[in-house]
């Protein structure tokens, strides 16, 4: 009872009207929307950012009210579909139900400005991890005006004077609105290649960058050894904008003191033999698992699938049962594939099982205008198998693990 009284007292001090008539409290721009957008929208939606509309001021947001109502209700924005139970992976995670409701209420309430200070938004410019050890400029890269996804590949030679240990990298694209995902790999003969089926000409994956996600970064005592003459192979994914764009970018490399104590490695969980039926029920679930052979941290996850995948996740199972979801991409879209790097890598003991579960949808009744009868009359799709072609499928979850010692 005493605790209840204290809580009431605090609520009354914070908002007198709210205490007596909580439903009359309408969200305002300054009170609710600006802080929410600062947290979930503006790192992309600012001048020179990857997002199309500035959402920095009341006027910016009010002007786009009709569109915001649609894309936040449908959860199309923020577009980062991936979440983890074990830490932050995206710059901005998806809106919660409560946040989406606040936006709807604000728009339907006439978009009042309200009173109070608007949180200051630090413009995103330069390198977010500070001064790099080396910057590699990759130019020219031309992105055509059309096409849903443009994939390009480039090889850069590092002019290192001695062996270095790479612990982080970052990317600054010249045209942030078209650059989507970059995968960086080390090209050195004789090592296992997790990317051979997708055609990347590299031998050891380093990490990935994607717009809207955390950069790839190892803990302070870890690194990847780079030798003089090593080459980096970079696979770039662009979304064309409707006009020809400059796909050039700067790659920042961060070298630490050598030698680093720990070195990460990639394990690949998946299958290279499977069939996805085109018959009812049109869904196929594929599952594969692997065990950690040592106490380890999970640094990064990189799923590989193509067009008919619909859901991708990585589960963690401990000795006493499920521990949670390391990565859940509830709506797999090849063109929105991210880079799933933990801001703070979680740790798991040896013997922990990582289980990849992908779902694929092999049906030809995607057209919402078709009736049930029309769908039933459609020819069945041919089965899809593992393979290197665009029309084949993949089921791979690459996981970067860093042993404890």
């Amino acid at each position: 009872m005493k605790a209840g009284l204290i809580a009431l007292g605090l609520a009354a001090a914070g908002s007198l009207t709210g205490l007596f008539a909580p439903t009359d409290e309408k969200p305002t721009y300054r009170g609710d929307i600006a802080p929410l957008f600062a947290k979930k929208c503006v790192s992309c939606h600012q001048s020179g950012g990857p997002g199309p509309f500035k959402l920095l001021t009341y006027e910016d947001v009010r002007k786009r009210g009709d569109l915001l109502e649609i894309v936040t209700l449908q959860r199309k924005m923020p577009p980062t579909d991936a979440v983890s139970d074990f830490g932050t992976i995206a710059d901005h995670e998806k809106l919660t139900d409560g946040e989406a409701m606040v936006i709807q209420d604000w728009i339907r309430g006439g978009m009042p400005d309200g009173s109070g200070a608007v949180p200051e938004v630090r413009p995103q410019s330069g390198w977010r991890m500070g001064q790099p050890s080396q910057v590699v400029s990759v130019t020219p890269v031309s992105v055509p005006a059309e096409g849903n996804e443009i994939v390009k590949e480039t090889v850069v030679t590092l002019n290192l004077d001695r062996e270095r240990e790479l612990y982080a990298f970052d990317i600054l694209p010249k045209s942030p609105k078209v650059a989507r995902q970059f995968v960086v790999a080390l090209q050195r003969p004789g090592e296992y290649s997790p990317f051979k089926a997708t055609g990347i000409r590299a031998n050891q994956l380093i990490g990935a960058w994607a717009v809207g996600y955390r950069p790839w970064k190892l803990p302070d005592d870890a690194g990847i050894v780079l030798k003089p003459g090593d080459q980096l192979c970079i696979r770039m994914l662009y979304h064309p904008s409707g006009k020809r764009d400059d796909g050039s970018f700067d790659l920042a490399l961060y070298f630490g003191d050598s030698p680093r104590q720990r070195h990460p490695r990639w394990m690949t969980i998946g299958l290279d033999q499977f069939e996805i039926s085109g018959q009812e029920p049109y869904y196929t679930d594929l599952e594969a698992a692997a065990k950690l052979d040592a106490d380890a941290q999970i640094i990064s996850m990189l799923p590989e699938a193509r067009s008919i995948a619909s859901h991708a996740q990585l589960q963690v199972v401990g000795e006493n049962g499920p521990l949670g979801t390391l990565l859940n991409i509830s709506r797999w879209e090849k063109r929105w594939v991210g880079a799933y790097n933990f801001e703070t890598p979680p740790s798991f003991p040896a013997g922990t099982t990582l289980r990849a579960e992908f779902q694929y949808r092999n049906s030809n009744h995607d057209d919402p205008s078709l009736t049930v009868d029309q769908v039933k009359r459609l020819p069945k799709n041919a089965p899809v198998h593992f393979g290197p072609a665009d029309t084949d499928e993949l089921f791979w979850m690459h996981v970067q693990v860093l042993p404890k010692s």
Partner: protein
Amino acid sequence: MILAAALALSIKAADLTGKAVTIPTPQKVTCLLFVGTECPIANRAGPEFNRIVSDFKGVSFYFVYVDGSSKADAVKHWNDFEYKAPGILDSSFSVAKFAKATVTPETAVFDKGGKLVYRGRINDAYTEHNLPRDKPSKNELRDALTAVLAGKPVAQPHVAAIGCSIPFPR
């Protein structure tokens, strides 16, 4: 004569070079392509817009900027996207209201008599935000232009467009 004048609804505007235009163009099939300087869905439609302008000779096309952008931004965008028809800056949203457009990229087709015979999407490249098709399977704007040039009725006079809501003043 009075009746004819009353039916011949039209609106005056100026193109980006300052030239006065009447919409719809008298005695011609007219097609308005509503665009914005920032709308990614409208921007991605640019190349197909230009192909349609090239493919349908004899149609009077206008790119109508309806996102409240400045004239300088509109001119730069029109040049960057190499639009193959004149641009109009619709700062007052009067052209959008005249054609009942609500999003970019939406299109409006008027027959030679100035009657609005089609309003809606170009094609089904987008049926929801963020997820374009690899290749559109329905091309309603091309179908509408083909029909109206042949003097036939447009099969589907309205197909909702997916894109960026036009920021009408509230």
